[in-house]
């Protein structure tokens, strides 16, 4: 389990011109038992890393690729310069220049091909891992005729892990387009479309990539040496005092559905109604609760970052609590699974597409608490329940 102070320090350190951090949204900040490490797993420059179940950060390594923001389910990491809106506007503007073709390319490729293409018709990103489904669907809704993500020699790139994120995003988007019956498909290509090239010079990315790769590996070696030197030079810092979030009146932590998720749902609504199919994507989950095993603690709802899982009183007269789960608001952070003390809750991959569009929720009626309240025997009762033993003598 990572130290809470390390998480706080991570966010403090990452805040920069490239990334805006919202530590209150991080699943691991909300729940120290959470297993989410997606940012570290996806980081393309090792700025965020895990060693012996500890999260470490090296801020000067951050290249602002935005891949961590793409994988973060709760929007705790928010890319800036460009932010999502600016990136979308750039893509639309470039697509308009390119007669409806939206092309987003890795900056390494564009640097290598400098002078060979019309820069007005293509959008550059540090890494294709920056692209998320909401951006791609926004382009589809906007009416572009095609969307291409152009990679460089990602296999040899020091930030190669970003490509895996990009591939996952593209696959997810194509799945959504299929289920929503839209004919457009997103492609990942190795070269710029001919329509973007200024003249036919027979540009060969592989040759250029070789030299870039050498340069990249040299840079990596140099930065690794530097990192070690910096780490050795830095003194051990004192642990910062923990910063805890305040709870709301209903005992839950503040909720926030990331803007990207809302935009994604809005774009899907604009595409129309989906087929009656099951979706299995990285985006949404479907909660099932074994009510026999569930003890009604409602911690899952307390910690859910988006209120996809929410609790409410069935009525004013009936004190029975129910839980509701809406897959559309679920970001699949698995915080609910991690926090459940009885393992009654399971987050399934399969989600009904139509549930996303029609806003259907699933309800779970919690069983009445077995513990007595406002009763002088309530401690005894609690002990009986905890120990699973009836024979306890009260003295």
């Amino acid at each position, binding site marked *: 389990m990572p130290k809470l102070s390390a998480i706080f320090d991570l966010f403090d350190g990452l805040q920069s011109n490239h990334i805006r951090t919202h530590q209150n949204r991080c699943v691991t900040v909300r729940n120290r038992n959470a297993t989410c490490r997606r940012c570290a797993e996806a980081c393309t420059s090792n700025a965020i890393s895990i060693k012996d179940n500890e999260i470490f950060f090296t801020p000067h390594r951050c290249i602002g690729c935005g891949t961590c923001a793409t994988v973060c389910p709760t929007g705790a990491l928010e890319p800036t310069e460009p932010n999502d809106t600016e990136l979308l*506007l750039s893509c639309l503007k470039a697509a308009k220049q390119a007669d409806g073709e939206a092309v987003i390319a890795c900056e390494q490729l564009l640097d290598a091909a400098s002078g060979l293409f019309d820069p007005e018709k293509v959008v550059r990103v540090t890494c294709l891992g920056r692209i998320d489904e909401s951006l791609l669907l926004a382009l589809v809704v906007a009416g572009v005729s095609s969307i291409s993500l152009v990679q460089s020699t990602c296999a040899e790139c020091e930030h190669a892990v970003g490509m895996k994120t990009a591939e996952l995003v593209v696959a997810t988007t194509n799945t959504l387009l299929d289920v929503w019956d839209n004919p457009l498909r997103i492609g990942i290509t190795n070269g710029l479309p001919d329509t973007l090239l200024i003249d036919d010079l027979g540009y060969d990315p592989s040759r250029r990539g070789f030299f870039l790769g050498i340069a990249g590996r040299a840079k990596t070696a140099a930065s690794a040496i530097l990192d070690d030197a910096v780490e050795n030079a830095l003194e051990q810092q004192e642990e910062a005092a923990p910063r805890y979030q305040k709870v709301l009146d209903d005992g839950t932590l*503040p909720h926030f559905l990331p*803007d990207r998720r809302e935009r994604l*749902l809005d774009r899907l*609504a604009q595409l129309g109604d989906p087929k009656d199919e099951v979706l299995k994507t990285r985006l949404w989950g479907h909660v099932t609760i074994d009510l026999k095993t569930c003890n009604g603690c409602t911690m899952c709802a307390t910690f859910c970052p988006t209120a996809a899982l*929410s609790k409410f009183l069935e009525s004013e007269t009936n004190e029975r609590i129910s839980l509701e789960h809406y897959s559309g608001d679920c970001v699949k952070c698995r915080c609910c699974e991690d926090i459940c003390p009885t393992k009654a809750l399971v987050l399934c991959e399969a989600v009904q597409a139509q549930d996303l569009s029609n806003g259907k929720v699933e309800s779970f009626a919690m069983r009445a608490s077995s513990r007595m309240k406002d009763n002088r025997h309530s401690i005894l009762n609690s002990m009986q329940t905890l120990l699973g033993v009836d024979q306890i003598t009260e003295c």
Partner: protein
Amino acid sequence: MATPAYRIQDAPAWMEAGAVRICGGVKSGKTEALLEKACFLANKGIDPGRICVVVNTANAAEAFRERLSVMLEGGQFDVARLRITTIQLLAVELLSCKEARLALARNPRVLNAYERAFVLQDLAVCGFTDAQRESALTSLARFWSTGIIPELPADGEDDTRDEIATAVWAYLETYLIAHQAVLPEDLSYLCTLFIKHDLWQAAAPGFDHVMVDDFQNLSKASQIVCEALAKNSLVITGNTEVPGMNRDAFPCPEGLTRFVEEHDAAISIALERTSGSEATKTSTYTSGRDALSDSPTRQILNIKWKTPEEEAKGISQWIRRLTSGSKEASLSDFYLIVPNSHWARAFEQSLTSQFREHVTLLCGQFLSERLCEPSCSPTLTAFTKLNLLAHPSDPLAWRCWCGLGLADRGAESWKQLLELAKRENLTVSEAVAQLSKTASSDEETGSPHFEALRERYLEGMDFIERNQKKIGYALLKAVAGEAPDRAFSLLVDLFEGTEDARTTFDRAWKCALDPHIGSRLDAVRILSYGELTGLSPQTVILVGLNDVLMPPGDRSDNSTAELERELFGKDYQALFQDAVGKASKTLVVSTIQKMEQKTAEALGIRIARLKTEHGKTMAMLSPSSLLPETGSPIPGSESGEYFLTTL
């Protein structure tokens, strides 16, 4: 700091020019340029009564006067004599001169919002449907805004004029003349008629120097009036990058863009932006985004709330937290910009609940709308009583008095009175006076409608007799009771305690015509986007910033793909950009995620997405499409729930 340009020896050449256009974007110093010109004229010894400054709102006029007073402090120039006014009040003054009354045979008694409601009701009982009435009035307003006098079709020629609009106008013209009143949208047009009349030269109205701020916001007719009044110099300012905002019903931005072509020897100056807003340096804001980007010390918050109720409560809590016990922040620092009356009411209630007292000030259109509501009878009653005392023979005052509190505003009864007047060739006032006669056996004048009118008339006469000599607070108590309604108190703001009915009514009437914010009141201002013109608030809070609220209308129609979509609602874009650039200290952008489906349907919002939540169906909303155009200066949203926990 640059040398003030209003010292004569330092004045730039344009200050001596006859026709000058000063163009600049948001916060580029356009108003400052006019202030410097005014100071220049003052230092030249020009009589302040010969200078006129036309601004968009009464509030802007107040702000201009205050700033000018500071700049000229200690000098001999009497700022109070300098005419700083709105085009409406200027037009009323122009039409009040005896030559204008002779030329046009019209009394410039302008209908305000309350009185207009009675007139529209009277139109309704004459057989015109609501749709016909609205359409006709819009056509008329558009026509009047052009300042062009139409030629009637010659004999034998086809009359291509809008039939319904012509019929409505025919009735309305007779009605207004009989009641000695004019519609506000007709003011500038009437002035253009006067300008073209022979008596204009005899009257010789005008000023040596006229300055107009935000020229593009005026209608063509209003622009013609300003040009006609300027004898020696005319200086106008405006922003050519944005279309006119709806200060006049039909603004004419072409008047600004074509100014140099249409005026001999006119010069044009492009103002550029500086740090600090000195008017003589370079770099323009063309949009609120630029203004935002150039203010690194300005705090910008983007908060996403779950529901409108949460938004109102949360914002109210925030304001309370900032102002409680704080000497730095006061309620009047906060300007709440709302998309519609529903939001205005919700925030009014929420803030009142939070502070346990009235701490809000409805402004502009919201004040006008509120005052026209039947439930707002205390203010309407007080205003009508005051009118009656001030002008006991004003037919419009009697019209309102007789219709007060009645379901149809007494329209049927009044219609019968007008028919009587027409039949017996009486003026409306004379017909009203007939009501003093005892009930007759005549079928018409003995009818229940006439009986009701007669009763009302006698009540009115009794009221006048008992109170016409009262002044000061005794007068206020007589018209508004022991505890005047808050809205009425605002109408008589600055009451000194010695005013008679006529003086008090004039003040209330001016305020009703152009509800201004009144900087003296320590309250949160609630206003619409267009009301920000001429203001420099510290904290601007834009609430309900969702598609279909701002910009209003059906925004979920995606029949046209985004690439080919024209930028929707340039007017709303301009309003939004202006609002975004206004805040000097803090800008809050507030959006909501969802609202109950029934509320959304009641507001006429087309719903894109629904969600079931705890047994209710919620309509999911999108943030305003205007937000992306401001780009990176506005950060990504933060949860309202989390925001409140940080307070």
